[in-house]
C-alpha cells in the first residue's frame, strides 16, 4: 500500500496503537496442578516455563504432571464419578454448567488477555471469538444435561465414566470448553491435559470451577507435555479418550486405545479446500479467503489452506488477495487493531519455514505481505503461493500457519476431485451465488463441515469434526453428546 493512501487533509491516517493491558491477566509466577478441587503446591513438581510467543519471554512457570500426578487425577475423577456426579440429577448438573458459563462471561476480559499472552493470537479474536464461544458452549450443553432423553440416544442414556481429554494450543480455552461441557452434561468426570505451550487459560478455568463450587474431582486439570498426555491415554482407569491435535499423535493414541478397547474420539489435522466459482461476489470472497487462512495465524485445523479458484477469475482473485494481504496488520497481539498475531512457538515457526522453503524449491510462486515484523518473538508474514500443483508438499501437508496454496479448476467435477485429493477431510468452503450448485458440491465433498459463502464459523449448536484422517466423532450440537454417552 502506498504511503499517499494514508494522507488526508487531517494529516496521517495511520492507526495509533490501542493495546489492551497485560496486567488484566493477573498472572501468578507459578501454577500447580488442579486435582481433586485443589491447586497443588507448584514447588512439589517439576516446573517448566510457558512463553509469550510475541516476545519470546517467560510468562509463568507451571507444573509438568508426572505419571503419579495423572494417576491421582484419574483416581479423583473416578471417585467423583461414583460418589457424586454420575447420580446427580441432570437439572443439578445443568445448574453447575450454567454457573460456569456465567463465570466465564464475567471474567471474559481477563481470560482474553491471558489467552492472547500465552498463545500469541490477537486480542480481537480472543475477545470476540475464543472466550464468548467457550461460554456459549457451556451454556448450550448446560441445557442438555437435563434433556438427555430427548437427544435421540434412548430414554435414559448413561455416561461413559472418566474421560481423559487432551487439547491443542491453537484455541486453548475454547477446546477445553468443547471437551468439558458435553462430557459433564452427559454425566462423566474429566481429566484434562492442556497443551504444553498454552496451559494458562485452563488454569484460570480451574479457578472458575472452584468459584462455581463444582464438586472436587469432577474436573481435574493436569498440565504437562507429551509424556503427561501419553500417561493419561495409557492409564487403565479411564473409560474414554478425547483428543484434538495432529494426525500423527492421533494415530499413536488410536493404537494405544486399540489395546484396551476404550471409547475414542479424534479431531485431527486438515487441509481444507476453499472453492471459488466465477459467479461468486469477489469482495466477499476475498474477505472469506483471508478469514479462512489468516484467522488465528492459520493455526486452525479447519483452515481453508488450499484455495481452489475457477480459472476465469483466478488472476483477478490473486491480484485482489495480494492487495488485501498488504493491508493486514501484523504485530502486537494485545493491540486491538491487530489482525494477525504471533506464531505460537519456535517449533511451529520452524515447521512453517521449512514447508514454505519446500514450496519455493518445488517451483510455486511465493508472495508474502509487505508488513514489518517485530524483531523478537515468533512471526511469519501472511503468504500466498500461486502456480501450485497438487503434488507439491504445500498442497498436501498441513502447514498450520499463515500460508495459502492456490490452485485452479475449470469444472465443478474438477473442483470436487481436487478438493477431495487429500487424506484429510475436516472442512471446506464453497463460494457461489448458485445455491443448487453449492449443495451439489457440498454433497460430494469429503469433509465434516462445509461453509457456503462464509468460512470459519463456529457455534455450540453446530456439530464439528472430520472424516478420513481428520478423525472421527463430533463436538458441538446434539451429536456432540454421543461422544460421552454409553450408547
Amino acid at each position, binding site marked *: 500500500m502506498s504511503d499517499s493512501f494514508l494522507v488526508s487533509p487531517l494529516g496521517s491516517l495511520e492507526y495509533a496503537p490501542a493495546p489492551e493491558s497485560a496486567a488484566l491477566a493477573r498472572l501468578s509466577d507459578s501454577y500447580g496442578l488442579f486435582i481433586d478441587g485443589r491447586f497443588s503446591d507448584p514447588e512439589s513438581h517439576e516446573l517448566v516455563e510457558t512463553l509469550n510467543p510475541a516476545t519470546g519471554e517467560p510468562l509463568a512457570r507451571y507444573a509438568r504432571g508426572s505419571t503419579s500426578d495423572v494417576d491421582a487425577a484419574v483416581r479423583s475423577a473416578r471417585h467423583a464419578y461414583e460418589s457424586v456426579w454420575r447420580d446427580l440429577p441432570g437439572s443439578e448438573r445443568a445448574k453447575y454448567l450454567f454457573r460456569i458459563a456465567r463465570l466465564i462471561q464475567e471474567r471474559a476480559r481477563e481470560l482474553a488477555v491471558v489467552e492472547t499472552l500465552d498463545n500469541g493470537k490477537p486480542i480481537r479474536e480472543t475477545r470476540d471469538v475464543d472466550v464468548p464461544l467457550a461460554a456459549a458452549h457451556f451454556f448450550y450443553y448446560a441445557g442438555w444435561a437435563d434433556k438427555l432423553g430427548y437427544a435421540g440416544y434412548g430414554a435414559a442414556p448413561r455416561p461413559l465414566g472418566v474421560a481423559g481429554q487432551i487439547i491443542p494450543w491453537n484455541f486453548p480455552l475454547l477446546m477445553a470448553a468443547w471437551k468439558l461441557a458435553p462430557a459433564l452434561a452427559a454425566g462423566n468426570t474429566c481429566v484434562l491435559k492442556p497443551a504444553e505451550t498454552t496451559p494458562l487459560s485452563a488454569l484460570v478455568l480451574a479457578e472458575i470451577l472452584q468459584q462455581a463450587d463444582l464438586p472436587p474431582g469432577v474436573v481435574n486439570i493436569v498440565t504437562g507435555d507429551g509424556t503427561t498426555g501419553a500417561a493419561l491415554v495409557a492409564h487403565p482407569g479411564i473409560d474414554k479418550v478425547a483428543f484434538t491435535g495432529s494426525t500423527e499423535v492421533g494415530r499413536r493414541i488410536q493404537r494405544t486405545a486399540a489395546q484396551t478397547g476404550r471409547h475414542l474420539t479424534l479431531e485431527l489435522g486438515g487441509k481444507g479446500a476453499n472453492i471459488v466459482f466465477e459467479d461468486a461476489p469477489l469482495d466477499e470472497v476475498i474477505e472469506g479467503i483471508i478469514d479462512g487462512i489468516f484467522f488465528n495465524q492459520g493455526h486452525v485445523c479447519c483452515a481453508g489452506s488450499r484455495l481452489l479458484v475457477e480459472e476465469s477469475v483466478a488472476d483477478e482473485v490473486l491480484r485482489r488477495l495480494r492487495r488485501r494481504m498488504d493491508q493486514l496488520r501484523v504485530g502486537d497481539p494485545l493491540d486491538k487493531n491487530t489482525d494477525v498475531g504471533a506464531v505460537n512457538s519456535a517449533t511451529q515457526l520452524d515447521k512453517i519455514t521449512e514447508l514454505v522453503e519446500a514450496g519455493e524449491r518445488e517451483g510455486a510462486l511465493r508472495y508474502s505481505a509487505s508488513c514489518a515484523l517485530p524483531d523478537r518473538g515468533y512471526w511469519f508474514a501472511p503468504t500466498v503461493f500461486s502456480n501450485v500443483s497438487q503434488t507439491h508438499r504445500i498442497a498436501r501437508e498441513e502447514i498450520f500457519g499463515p500460508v495459502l496454496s492456490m490452485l485452479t479448476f475449470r469444472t465443478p467435477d474438477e473442483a470436487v476431485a481436487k478438493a477431495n485429493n487429500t487424506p484429510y477431510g475436516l472442512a471446506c468452503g464453497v463460494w457461489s451465488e448458485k445455491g443448487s*450448485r453449492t449443495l*451439489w458440491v457440498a454433497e460430494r465433498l469429503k469433509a465434516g463441515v462445509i461453509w457456503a459463502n462464509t468460512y470459519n464459523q463456529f457455534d455450540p*449448536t453446530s456439530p464439528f469434526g472430520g472424516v478420513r484422517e481428520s478423525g472421527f466423532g463430533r463436538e458441538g450440537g446434539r451429536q456432540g453428546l454421543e461422544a460421552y454417552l454409553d450408547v
Partner: protein
Amino acid sequence: MSERLDVMKTYKLLIKGQFLRSESGRTYEVSDAVGGFLANAARASRKDVREAVVAARGAQASWWESSAYLKGQILYRWAEMAESRRRDLADLVQRAWGIGEDEALEDVNAAIDRLVWYAGWTDKIAQVYGGANPVAGPYFNFSVPRPCGVVAAIAPSNGSLQGWVDVVAAPLCAGNTVVAVASHEHPLAAFALAELTATADVPPGVLNLLTGDLAELAETLARHEDVDGLDLTGAGEFATAMAEWSADSITRTYRPHPGDDPTRRLRSFIETTTVWHTMGY
C-alpha cells in the same frame, strides 16, 4: 415498641412492559387461605385483553428473530432474578395457600428450576423437532420448527408457581409471545414473578399478564383473530367453550392430559416449515 407497619403493594396488569391499572378502573379483592385481605388485584376488561394481544403481536417478530442463544440467556436471566427473590415469592405462595414455609419454597424452587429447563430448550427445539428429509430426488429438503405466534395461556387455578412457569415459558422458549391470565384466586406470586421480567431483559410485549375474572375474558381471548395458540390449562369450566370458540380462526389449543410429557405443551405451540432446495449444477 410498636411493630413496623408494612408498605402495601398495588398490583397491576403487565402490558407491553408497562404496569397498568385496568382501563376499566376495576379491581377485586385477593384473600389469603383463611379469608384475610391480601391485596386488590386489577380486574382486566375485554379491552385490556385486546391491548395485550396487540402488544404481544407487536413483539413477536423480533422475539422470534432474536437468536435462540439470546432467548436462552434472557430466560436464564429471569431465573437468576427469581432466585434472588426466592423468599419473597415463597412468602406470597405461603400466604395464598396457607402452607408452611418449606412447602412454599419447594414450589418456588421447582418453578425456578423449570425456568432453567426452558432456558436450555431455546437452542435445542430445532435440533430435536426439525431435521433433514431424504426425499427421492435432487433436492436438499429440511424442516425447521417455528413458533405459532401469539399464545394466550390460562394459568392453573390452584396458583402453583411451577404450573404458571410451564404455561408461560413453554411458548416463550419456542419464540412465541404470550398473553397470560393468572389464577383468579392466587394471582400475587405469579404477578411478582412476571414483574421480574422487567429486570431480566425480556423485551416489552413478549410477556403480558392479566388478572381478573376468566368468565369475562375467556370468549374475547379464544375468539381473537390474532391469537394463534391457546393453553387451556387453567380454563376449568370454560375449557370446552374456549376450545370451541378457538375454532373460529383455527387456533391451536393445548389441554393437559394426565401423564403428558413435559415437552407436549412446548410442541403444541410450534409449527413446522419445510424447505425444498434444488441440488445440481
